[in-house]
């Protein structure tokens, strides 16, 4: 008996075992799931794509590190969330983005998008999209300069061609599926994004609710208003947004019902902006607007207690 009492036993509330998965493991899964799209961006836009992505990731980590040091807070760069933010930000920038703008964007994402609200878990908006919105308002020319894959010749984005009714060839479905078209770094290859998305679904880091309701709504509205649904699903940032941005845990609703509402809302806003707004693309703003509604969606979709 003495041998036990003589040392310290841990006395804590149950459960006494915990799942191995922590926040870092979740973030690692997301990074892993984004890597096919990263590879696609290098294939289609060359090594400059990797440079933009690296600058974005590095600036995100550095912003988080120095901000937390500055305020004497626990440094949490080890949780990899700033890596995810850096990757996602680079993925929503044009391949020709100047590197200084990328670095400013990363700073905005981490500090204005996340840290000023208290860090990971407290940010109301998707940090990468906050940065994209700020950059689009600040440097609209850089943010809307598109280049063709492989040869880097300046061109219009597929959605831009439709919006401005330009006399340019639209990419075929197959080209869009593989990623051979102008667009943001990470959004071009539907195939690469779907591979990553399947991985996240398999690992249960996201559920089907938001992507399916989001993409389904866009497809359905396009069908009803006689626009090409498949083109609208593949041409812009919808696949990237629906699987990797709208599903951001911190800024989307908690319940499955809420996630469906959120996805439908994103879908409606996206087509509204694309078809009637001033911009050819609406994924970024629609997700940011729905982020704003997340608390109220949570409130309205509280689950019913078992048996009631």
């Amino acid at each position, binding site marked *: 008996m003495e*041998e036990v009492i003589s040392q310290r*036993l841990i*006395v804590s509330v149950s*459960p*006494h075992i915990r799942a191995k998965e922590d926040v870092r493991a979740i973030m690692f899964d997301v990074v892993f799931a984004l890597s096919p799209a990263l590879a696609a961006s290098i294939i289609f836009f060359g090594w400059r794509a990797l440079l933009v992505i690296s600058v974005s990731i590095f600036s995100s980590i550095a912003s988080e590190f120095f901000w937390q040091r500055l305020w004497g807070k626990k440094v949490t760069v080890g949780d990899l969330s700033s890596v995810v933010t850096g990757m996602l930000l680079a993925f929503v920038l044009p391949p020709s983005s100047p590197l200084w703008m990328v670095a400013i964007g990363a700073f905005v994402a981490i500090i204005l998008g996340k840290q000023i609200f208290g860090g990971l878990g407290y940010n109301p908006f998707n940090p990468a999209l906050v940065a994209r919105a700020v950059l689009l308002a600040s440097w609209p020319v850089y943010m809307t300069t598109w280049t063709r894959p492989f040869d880097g010749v300046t061109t219009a984005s597929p959605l831009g061609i439709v919006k401005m009714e330009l006399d340019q060839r639209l990419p075929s479905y197959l080209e869009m599926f593989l990623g051979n078209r102008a667009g943001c770094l990470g959004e071009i290859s539907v195939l690469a994004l779907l591979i990553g998305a399947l991985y996240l679904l398999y690992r249960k880091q996201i559920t089907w609710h938001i992507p399916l309701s989001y993409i389904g709504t866009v497809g359905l509205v396009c069908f009803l208003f006689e626009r090409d649904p498949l083109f609208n699903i593949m041409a812009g940032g919808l696949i990237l947004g629906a699987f990797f941005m709208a599903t951001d*845990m911190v800024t989307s609703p908690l319940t499955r019902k809420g996630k469906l509402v959120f996805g439908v809302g994103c879908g409606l806003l996206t087509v509204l902006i694309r078809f009637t707004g001033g911009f050819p693309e609406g994924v970024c703003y629609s997700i940011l607007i729905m982020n704003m509604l997340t608390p109220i969606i949570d409130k309205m979709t509280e689950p019913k207690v078992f048996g009631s």
Partner: protein
Amino acid sequence: MKRLFTFKGGVHPPYFKELTSGQPLGRASLPKKVVIPLSQHTGKPAKPIVQTGDKVKTGQLIGESDGFISLPVHSSLSGEVIDIKPWPHPLGHALPSVIIESDGRDEWVSDLIVHEDYFRLSPEELREIVKNAGIAGLGGAAFPTHVKLTPPENCEIDTVILNGCECEPYLTCDHKLMLEYSREILEGLRIIMQVVDADLGIIGVEANKTDAISLLENELRREPGIQLAVLKVKYPQGAEKHLIDAVLNRRVPPGKLPLDVGVVVDNVGTALAIRQAVKRGIPLIERVVTITGSGIKQPQNLWARLGTLFTDLVSHCGGLLGNPEKIIAGGPMMGIAQYTLDVPLIKGTSGILILSEAETFSEGDCIRCSKCIDVCPVNLMPTVIAQHVKQKDWEVVRKYSPYDCMECGACAYVCPAKIPLVQYIKWGKEEAREK
């Protein structure tokens, strides 16, 4: 393969049942001393009817039940009462206990009443036997069984479910009982069905206990009116309301009892205890307990007398392996961490889990991954409750139904930020009640 019964939510922790499931069911040597708490059940403690210096025999009544929701306690040894005083209890506080020193003879009381032909007894007589035998639910909650067997006037019971899920990791005592006492357990089920006048009996077993399932399938060929339900391996499959939902597709409303949907659920060990009490007149003085974990030399299941100190049971299993960091009464998901091995085995102790390494976690910020909500078998929002508990906003806490939480621990188990959600919810329950 036919579809397995289950419920929505839940988690899949590692089970570690192989530590003990292959070992034979043994019997602990008689201890030199037992400590019998007067409160080993949910409800009012028993009133002691012996005094220091009294000689007692095995099976002798030493504490009377005090009211309807209360139970008697019996001596689990023959010997002398050496003290009646508060003693460390597995539930945390020191509680009044009768301490008996063994005379080494294990002499039983002579007036055990045997009812071979229990089917002649009325429900009232059977209930009285169950109550007088001190039988509480042996699955862990230790609710007095006779109360469960007393449906209110307007309540029709049609089904009795025996709970042999044993979904807690590490524990295998119910599994062992089903293997070695399947007939007696089925007889216990018949007795319960007779008490509550139910036509259907079901034994629910998780699919991982394949040997017990094939054994029961065989036995049940001769038992019309009793069925086997094989359930998906998932925690907390053995939660009473979720077992009913899985097997019968009936949902017990919040704050209601299984009786309200026409069902009685008892643990398989409880059914065996009922059978022993009715057919052999033996009160509840022993149970099977799983002694297991990385910190014990010979993990195994043992029949042990109630009141045996954990330390004696550990010695019987070859002693400790290194220095334990955590000792748990029960399983790792819902069991209670102990600060000493000097606590006695009580009616509800299904396991003694000794962990040589226990992880401690520092709590992070919620990233709203909603995993706790997805796994909650009662559809609560654990992280939302915890968040309001942290703000001490008790009015709001109450709105999120913390009282429907059964503290199964699935939420805290799965939380990637390692937030002790059960701890917050328990705190919330306390504070929200006070005001």
